[in-house]
């Protein structure tokens, strides 16, 4: 078997080099490379990608950007100062530097968005793979569990969980992960159910592949498209829900800054202190748009029908 493969690859390699010598350039088909080529032609997707990379960099190096003593330091004499050369984005009503708070808020938003989707994807894809691969009774049982979680009103349930656990970033991630996995499960399962009838999966089974081997090597890689798209759209949704929870005062624990909380605390004073709501709202908007443009771009790029 191994020898056959080597022979085959030398054979094709030889053929390719022969063709290349004749001046025929060969373009190897690789769906990820093709998708990448399609994506870099879409300027909105590239804007989204640059935005997302920028946000992640800001989140990772947030400590380096801290000014005027960091996000929690109160300069009580300088409260409610409009943006100036010293306080770039101004200060809030207890004199905290808004620039530092928005930079640190980026780390919180990224933590909540990325980690929530990370856990939701692991739970969702695992359960979805098992349900879709084994089908029948297993599928039936697991999907009934999904039905129950799907019927949970997300925001209300998050309020419930946050009150039970107390407010903190890890608890927020737990509360949001608990309600966001069923979407991933449904997607993965649907993909698996349609793929498991394909000839190459039957061939893999016939040649004696283990179940997990077939799932990991054949089924999952071929189900990635909708999963990746769902992840990119899930991240802003999680950040959005965090912002709404913070509106009710049950999001992150002070003095840790959250964009949603900063907006909701200062909207009442909007006419007097416009910058207190404006900068966090803008940061929120940039994040939402970056992830959405990137998600749109990935979806279009991975859809071979959009090849023209």
């Amino acid at each position, binding site marked *: 078997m191994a020898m056959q493969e080597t022979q085959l690859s030398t054979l094709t390699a030889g053929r390719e080099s022969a063709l290349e010598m004749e001046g025929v350039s060969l373009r190897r088909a690789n769906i990820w490379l093709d998708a990448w080529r399609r994506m870099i032609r879409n300027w909105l997707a590239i804007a989204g990608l640059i935005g997302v990379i920028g946000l992640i960099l800001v989140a990772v190096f947030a400590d380096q950007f801290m000014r005027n003593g960091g996000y929690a330091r109160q300069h009580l004499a300088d409260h409610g100062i409009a943006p100036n050369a010293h306080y770039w984005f101004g200060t809030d009503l207890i004199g905290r530097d808004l620039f530092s708070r928005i930079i640190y808020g980026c780390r919180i938003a990224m933590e909540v968005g990325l980690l929530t989707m990370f856990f939701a994807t692991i739970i969702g894809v695992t359960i979805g793979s098992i349900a879709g691969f084994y089908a029948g009774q297993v599928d039936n049982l697991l999907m*009934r569990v999904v039905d*129950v979680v799907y019927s949970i009103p997300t925001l*209300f*349930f998050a309020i419930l969980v946050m009150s*039970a656990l107390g407010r903190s970033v890890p608890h927020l991630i737990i509360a949001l992960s608990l309600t966001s996995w069923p979407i991933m499960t449904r997607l993965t399962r649907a993909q698996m159910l349609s793929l498991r009838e394909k000839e190459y999966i039957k061939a893999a089974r016939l040649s004696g592949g283990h179940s997990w081997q077939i799932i990991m090597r054949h089924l999952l890689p071929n189900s990635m498209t909708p999963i990746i798209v769902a992840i990119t759209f899930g991240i802003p949704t999680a950040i959005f829900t965090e912002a709404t929870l913070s509106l*009710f005062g049950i999001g992150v624990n002070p003095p840790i800054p959250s964009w949603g909380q900063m907006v*909701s605390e200062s*909207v009442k004073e909007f006419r007097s202190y416009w910058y207190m709501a404006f900068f966090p709202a803008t940061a929120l908007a940039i994040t*939402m748009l970056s992830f959405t443009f990137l998600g749109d771009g990935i979806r279009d790029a991975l859809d071979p029908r959009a090849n023209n």
Partner: protein
Amino acid sequence: MLRYTVFRLAWMVPCLLALSLITFVFMHLTPGSPLQPDAANNPLTPAEQHVLAKQFGLDKPIWQQYTTFVWNATRLNFGKSYVFKTRSVTQILKKQTKVSIELGLVALTIAVVGGLGLGIMAAMNQNGPADYICTFLAMLGIALPNFVLGVFLILLFVLVFHLIPRTGGWTSPADVILPAIALGMTPLATIARYTRSSMVDVIRSDYVRTARAKGLAEPRVMLVHVVKNGLIPPLTIMAPIFAAVLTGSPAIESIFRIPGIGQYFVNSFTARDYPMIMAIILLLGAFIIALNLIVDLLYGVVDPRIRYS
């Protein structure tokens, strides 16, 4: 189809039972209790607390409290609110749900009519003005959380232009407009985006070219061939959107001070008003399940290839 519907309806019962159990467990895991026996400055004497606990059934073991709840809930009796002691939960919810449903329906109408209309117009006139409006609104709907949009709407229409006299309350039609727009904007944007992309796909398809080639009038091509088939993908996202409008209301209700179900939920939570919490979560859960069922059945109507067994 009928068998499938009956099965799905019957399945609601175990679903709601499981939902009630999860809610019940988390609710009792929450630190603090309605009577706060450990609080330092509790105005109630231990004897009074004992009487109240007995009256509300809080002295019984947890499992018994749950079975009592389920038994009463089957007859739609959710008990009395701990906060509004003279009114039953059912009475309160009847009044408050009406407000939330009115708000939700207006918001949904704006979202569905506006979203479909805009999406169809954008697809029929690609890269024209309608297309740019569609893209702009979609970006606005994505970028702004509904409560931020709500605040901007209040500033603009109430404080700057004085078009609407005030906010707060739920008595005149003017109270409905701004919160409904704020709540409906994000769903409108989502529906418009989905509709546009699905219409564009359909317009490029072979059977539309055939329809045009055989000389059908353009409105007929659009209505019979494009719109009808292009509606299937937007339909798939309707259930989550309906749910989002429902659960998105607490933020809007709080900003616009509307006496709806979302406000009551947040308040009943701080008060550990157990009967209210249970009733609201179950009510919303039942709503979401019913919506999912309706959308699933609608697929079958729009796309005859889908058959239920």
